[in-house]
């Protein structure tokens, strides 16, 4: 049974019809021991089917371990988004971006396709000045209305600066990470294993931390 009914499909089509350029959805799955993989598989398939501008590539974490390593994928389900020239900005979704999180997923598709809102000059300057490698993991739940805001901010930072990578992590899909990073409220962003940011903070607050690292 499809995830999206006709009505939703129509709305989603209207959104993806705004893509300015092609986007490639790289999906990593696994045959066993991944309860969320098959739903996420349907999700990416149905989304990719909505527009000619979307290309879907599917890999298996185990069988295609080299490709997984190239994209730095260590858990499934995972989605990496690439632009039309296959540039990888380090934008990842771990777990299904359903519920509220569909919004950050669609937002990322549009931004990678080139449909971006301009950043204020001081913010753009601060982002460009970051020279250290940064990895952000934004923990979310699918019932959290504030979470897509945090995910989109982290992904936008990754899009703007090649030193920055950003993951959405659906908390309940990866309980061991919830324990490891002590996630008991969302959104919670873990930055380079050393810093954390709680709540959907403005981009300036993210930058305050990135500049300290």
């Amino acid at each position, binding site marked *: 049974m499809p995830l999206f009914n006709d009505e939703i499909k129509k709305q989603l089509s209207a959104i993806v019809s705004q893509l300015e350029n092609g986007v490639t959805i790289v999906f990593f799955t696994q045959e066993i021991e991944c309860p969320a993989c098959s739903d996420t598989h349907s999700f990416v398939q149905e989304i990719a089917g909505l527009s000619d501008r979307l290309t879907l590539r599917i890999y298996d974490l185990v069988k295609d371990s080299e490709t997984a390593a190239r994209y730095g994928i260590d858990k499934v389900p995972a989605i990496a988004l690439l632009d039309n020239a296959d540039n990888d900005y380090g934008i990842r979704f771990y777990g299904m971006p359903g519920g509220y999180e569909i919004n950050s997923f669609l937002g990322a598709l549009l931004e990678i396709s080139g449909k971006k809102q301009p950043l204020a000059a001081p913010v753009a300057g601060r982002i460009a000045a970051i020279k250290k490698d940064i990895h952000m993991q934004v923990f979310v739940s699918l019932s959290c209305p504030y979470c897509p805001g945090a995910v989109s901010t982290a992904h936008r930072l990754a899009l703007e600066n090649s030193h920055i990578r950003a993951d959405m992590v659906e908390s309940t899909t990866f309980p061991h990470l919830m324990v490891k990073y002590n996630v008991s409220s969302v959104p919670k962003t873990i930055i380079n294993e050393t810093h954390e940011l709680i709540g959907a903070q403005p981009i*300036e607050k993210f930058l305050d931390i990135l500049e300290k690292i």
Partner: protein
Amino acid sequence: MPAKKNATARPFYGMPVLDIVDDTVYNIFNIRCTILCYEDGIFAMEFHLTIAALSGETRALELEKSRLYDVIILGGGPAALTAAVYCMRKGVSTGLITMDFGGQVAETSSVENYMGYKYIEGIDLVDKFREQVRQFPIGISEGRKIAAISDGAIKHTTLDDGSVYQSRTLIIATGKSWRRLNVPGEREFTGRGVAYCATCDAPLFSGKRVIVVGGGNSGIEAAIDLARVAEQVTVMQFLSQLTADTILVEKLRQYPNVDFLYEHEITEIKGAQAVESVTVKNRQSEETRDIPASGIFIEIGLLPNSDFSRGVLEHNENNEIIVDCACHTSCPGIFAAGDVTSVPYKQIIIAAGEGAKAALSACDYIAKIHD
């Protein structure tokens, strides 16, 4: 997916959703998804789209620092947004500064007493308000917090990043926010077990023991969200009975894993890395004891967001800004509306009406300056 809805398994959470991306570039779409997660591990997802793509037409602008506005409106709830529509229609130059759109309405699941709608989701009402505002060329600053305001012929509004905006008049409509307990451990453990958004964080407490503080509607709603997933939920109430609507209390009582502690208060939240226990005091006997818990959800009502006007405007004993029946504050040229004010009864329709009144008062004031 009606078949799955009727399944015998108990959904562990299901809720409305929304709000997308960035509406200045894309059209605004409202995607309502319902997530149903069944206890036997079958994961089913529904997406309901209630509203088609909005017109998306927006003429809203960036708020400018160098410009002297006739009116700057502070806040983004029903009072502020109504004031914005009135000011723009009156033709005065208008700015709006808010952390978010919707205020408390964005957190309300359903509204059944705002005229024109027998039933509307809070978040849908917010979208209608926002759409109505953004059809005008109004200057908007969203996402930053107001830190201070100043009095004088030109009013200055300072944000938490230090930026300053200028206007001839101000309309303060910053509403109310959730109250904190103010006990040791609360701040330290915020995000480490101390939580304020049960719908967001309930899935993280699956199989754990949690405490909900507050026996009003929001406390009982939080307890229902949590009872679906947590091992045990303790509802702690200051008073000797719950104050929530009966219908909610009955719904909560259907869950076997809920208990109630009346006339108790929390005196401390303890733990190492995260919350491990709370100290509670019996208000009758004054006895204290520790209860193990990994989560504590605080739902004890609201406080006015008026700190930034302290010392500039007169407040009442509840820290609400005192206004007269035309929304004048103690300071000429500064008006206030909605939940942040001393006006009795805090409701959407009242806040909206007060916002209209404040805007008309501000426009009168400006007309007199320009004369």
